[in-house]
């Protein structure tokens, strides 16, 4: 083939290794996600809390600035586990919003025009396809969760007059693990729900509903049965508890604080398995042209 000769010629050049195909899917998925202005707007929004917390760290480590700006404050700024927990929680809500917008774009366009038979006729498996999309989602969410949080941590280590990093390394580890658990869950949930809903707007709503409807049901169960186990369905609460424990921050809701960590992890794992089963069922059904 050539543009000017307009004839067919065979390809004789190099071929990439098989594992690179997942990277191709992730790269194109990432490009698709960030081609939307709304994604860029949400990312910009995620920088606002980052800027605020960055200024907070600057003030906390600068006595002169503290005197000028926080002269009437009853207590000074304290950069500790609770500080990073607040940052992580705010960023996690923005991550949810980004998931609700991006995940339907990653899967919806492929399903809307029945692209799976062509995509999967290439050397890529169903697992590889989902993993590629998952990677695109995971990297996008990383940019608004653990990456800015760890940048703040690094800045705090740099700004602190005393040796701070070694004593508080568990905060960085906790932020990283806590954020990774949350964004991995959001990614798989977003992809699973998007694969089952034809319209992207509805899929966006379904992702929010999947977080908040079980929370409401859990609250009703807890109130009616007078048990704390209903809170296991309340993901915002259970994730907050998990993050507090990972970061070593003081626990704030005594009523649900006794939820055991293994129970929280089990709920998350079960939810992920359900999402994987949903994805498998949907993609398996759409991978071939039925004739």
């Amino acid at each position: 083939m050539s543009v000017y000769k307009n004839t067919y010629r065979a390809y004789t050049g190099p071929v990439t290794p098989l594992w690179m195909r997942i990277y191709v899917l992730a790269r194109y998925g990432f490009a698709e996600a960030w081609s939307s202005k709304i994604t860029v707007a949400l990312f910009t929004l995620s920088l606002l809390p980052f800027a605020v917390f960055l200024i907070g760290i600057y003030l906390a480590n600068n006595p002169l600035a503290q005197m000028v700006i926080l002269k009437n404050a009853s207590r000074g700024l304290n950069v500790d586990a609770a500080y990073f927990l607040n940052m992580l929680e705010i960023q996690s809500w923005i991550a949810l919003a980004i998931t609700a917008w991006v995940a339907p774009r990653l899967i919806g366009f492929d399903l809307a025009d029945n692209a799976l038979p062509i995509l999967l006729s290439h050397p890529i498996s169903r697992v590889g396809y989902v993993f590629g999309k998952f990677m695109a989602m995971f990297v996008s969410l990383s940019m608004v969760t653990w990456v800015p949080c760890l940048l703040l941590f690094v800045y705090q280590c740099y700004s602190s007059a005393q040796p701070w990093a070694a004593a508080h390394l568990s905060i960085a580890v906790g932020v990283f693990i806590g954020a990774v658990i949350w964004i991995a869950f959001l990614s798989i949930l977003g992809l699973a729900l998007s694969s089952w809903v034809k319209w992207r707007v509805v899929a966006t709503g379904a992702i929010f509903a999947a977080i908040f409807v079980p929370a409401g049901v859990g609250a009703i169960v807890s109130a009616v049965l007078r048990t704390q186990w209903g809170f296991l369905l309340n993901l915002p609460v259970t994730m907050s508890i998990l993050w507090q424990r990972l970061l070593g921050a003081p626990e704030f809701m005594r009523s649900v604080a006794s939820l055991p960590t293994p129970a929280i992890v089990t709920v998350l794992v079960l939810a992920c398995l359900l999402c994987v089963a949903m994805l498998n069922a949907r993609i398996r059904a759409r991978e071939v042209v039925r004739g």
Partner: protein
Amino acid sequence: MGVIDLDRLEVRLGARTVLDGLTGELQGNAIGLLGPNGAGKSTLINTLLGFHPPSKGTARVFGLDAHRDRARIRGAIGYMPENDSFIGNMTGVHFVRYMAELAGLPPGPALERAHEALFYVGLGEVRYRKVNSYSLGMKQLIKLAQALAHGPKLLILDEPTNGLDPMARQRMIQLVKEIRKEGSVKLLISSHLLRDIDETCDEVLILKNGRIAALCNIEAERRSNRSFMELETVGATEKFSVSIRGLGCECACFPGGRIKLVIPDNIEVRDLYVIASEQGVQIRRMNQRRDSLEDIFLRAMDNEPGRPAHVSL
């Protein structure tokens, strides 16, 4: 080693046996896949692509097991599905490049080949338009472009002329013929249109109820038909037929002086005129009949259901 080797291939989907004991070696440059709806054509294609594991037997493409080595096979195959299958919000060139990269081309060559493939199929001028703005014919062509871009060894075309107007159909057939002529790509073409297969293929596999109804080399069949002849005569037809039998021809007489005969290689048509002249028989019409693919197909459909048969004419 053929392009596709089937050895007692059986594929079950749920409780239903869709392909039942297919055995054969397909080695043509362009293989036609024919059969009525539900015969198992799409299932066979999906099995060759590794989507359906055989419940019994094996299917091999270029000597590789269709299920176990599916990643390698898919890398060597270009597949154009029957129905709409694309990513509508991508531009044509972006879509073809994406597919080429998935097939294993590095980004640079993938972009280059995407442009070339789009020009080759005639979509060069619209390659920066989004695919969902294309007409039906253009969508067929972009499916062909993405199947060609990575330079496959086997091109599987499922109903390539589906929904095309006569001009677009002719263009598609012409492209397929050019690809076949180029020689580096083998073709497997599934179609309901016998004329498409007749024009493009040199071998045909006819499926019926999940079994092979016929597997034949169209070119060889055509060659063997060159000696088949139909005559319309006036006069002593019976006596004439006895005489030409004496020359070694096989023949059958029909009312109205019609005679069908198969002429051996050593007999010339002129010999028939000589005998007719000697016996006072007038040959009013002489047809050297070419057996069409339609005849082969209809005969295969008339066969006992499910009996694998190599069509002989």
